[in-house]
């Protein structure tokens, strides 16, 4: 029965998994893109740091279901539009990453930054060529949390009828079947681990200069 169900639903499961991947990756990347300037702003000004980081963190406390329901009214989208989910998860990603980017930039050794200034780096050259590369380890660590959290929060969108792995939960619940439930959970865990490992690998690739004794 178990294998039969999976086998006969394989195309459907594949489609849901691909949807899940897309709906996780896109908001994570969008969130990072928005969090970079916000985090930089918080890092730049000591006075605005608590306000920016505080406001960003607060966004994470908005329940996801509420956000899924409210967003269509704000954005003027249909309730079933995946854009709602993308925007909601982008908001959560921003919420997690603003502090991470700010702290990552703050973690760059003071002497390194001062040396760049004294050598005649312009502000943007210093940011792009010196500060951001050195903030990668901290940002990558935050990104791991954000992506795993997105994989999990995304399943809530099943309640709105947006197809992804969470759909297997509602389906299993309605049909009183354990197999789709367990399959969905296992695939979610597998996806989370895969994304997490991918970021660890990318982080190492981008930071060959780190001491090898540090294990992720």
């Amino acid at each position: 029965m178990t294998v039969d169900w999976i086998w006969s639903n394989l195309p459907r499961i594949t489609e849901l998994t691909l949807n899940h991947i897309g709906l996780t990756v896109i908001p994570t990347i969008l969130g990072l893109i928005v969090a970079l300037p916000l985090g930089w702003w918080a890092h730049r000004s000591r006075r605005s740091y608590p306000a920016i980081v505080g406001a960003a963190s607060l966004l994470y406390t908005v329940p996801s279901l509420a956000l899924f329901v409210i967003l269509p009214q704000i954005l003027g989208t249909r309730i079933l539009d995946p854009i709602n989910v993308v925007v909601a998860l982008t908001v959560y990603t921003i919420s997690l990453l603003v502090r991470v980017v700010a702290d990552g930039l703050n973690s760059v050794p003071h002497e390194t930054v001062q040396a760049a200034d004294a050598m005649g780096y312009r502000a943007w050259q210093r940011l792009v060529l010196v500060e951001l590369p050195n903030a990668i380890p901290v940002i990558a660590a935050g990104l791991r949390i954000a992506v795993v959290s997105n994989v999990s929060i995304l399943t809530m969108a099943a309640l709105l009828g947006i197809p992804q792995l969470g759909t297997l939960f509602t389906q299993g619940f309605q049909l009183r079947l354990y197999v789709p439930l367990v399959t969905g959970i296992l695939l979610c865990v597998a996806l989370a681990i895969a994304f997490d490992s991918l970021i660890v690998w990318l982080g190492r690739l981008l930071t060959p200069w780190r001491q090898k004794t540090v294990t992720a």
Partner: protein
Amino acid sequence: MIFFDAVSKMYPDGTVAVDNLSLNAPNGKLTVLVGPSGCGKTTSMRMINRLIAPSSGTISLDGVDTQSMNAVQLRRKIGYVIQNAGLFPHRTIVDNVAALPRLLGGSRKQTRMHAMELLEHVGLDSSFASRYPWQLSGGQQQRVGVARALATDPPYLLMDEPFSAVDPIVRAQLQDEFLRLQADISKTIVLVTHDVDEALKLGDQVAVLRTGGTLAQVASPADLLAHPTDAFVADFVGSARGYRALGFVNTDDSIPVTPEQTVTLGQHTSTIGRTPSRWILAVNAVNQPVGWVDVELIAGDIISASDLNLSGTVTSAAGSVRDLLNSALASPSSRAVMIDSAGALRGTVTLHDIVSAIGQAKEARPNS
């Protein structure tokens, strides 16, 4: 020439870091700013490349007011070396040195090649080039810091406590090498230190600042030791200034060098003959001193390495009276060992002769 004209720095809370400083750092010379913490020496230095803006007064480079220049362009003309080197952790050693030339549009190949030459110039083996900063010792990182500051061949160099973070032996080594390098490149340098020994050793001129950011005295090291302007400077250059001052007096012909009877390792004791004192100098095959031998305590018939007393030091004929005196004081025979530029023995000078030479020199120049 870096010229401070009545420069002050006052912070919004009323703290005065630098108070009406006027100072000239001549071209091709090394000017040291020295003083206790809170004397504004680092603030003064950072105002040169506008990391800090002066509250009043002007700083000019070869007659051009730095305020009239673009800050980025100004900084690119001034090499900067800081304590702990401040290397870029994410770049290899060679790319750290090549960073600024590369930023200014040089090709990767050309800038790296030049960086390799600079690394060699500061005494770093090419095997370090592809390593990252954390893989180097503090002293090695500091050498890279110097190479990086010289990468665009800037006419000016600012050095903020450049040798403070390394152990004393490495520090002395880095200082000696830096002096040799500077003799070669003749940059206009302003160096900040809290270490008066370093200031006296490195500086062509030394500016002593006092707490509150006022200039107490600016003079050559020898002048500073001989004529401290007030009790603060006298106290700051230290109670050993009489001895330190001898470091700026060259040995000359007025000090008699006498030939010294020598033995070689492996020589039979029966061939020594009569010696004027119980200590006799041992030399190697090319007449370089290797240590003193106590003729009354030689174990066995052959003079061996274990008979050597190694407490003595040698001094070069081109050295200072301080080196000579030190050699005599360290020697068990109280005779200073003088060598020529090849390291071969020239002769010895007795402690008595050194002291009377110092006394005569002082009488000839009663002011010093």
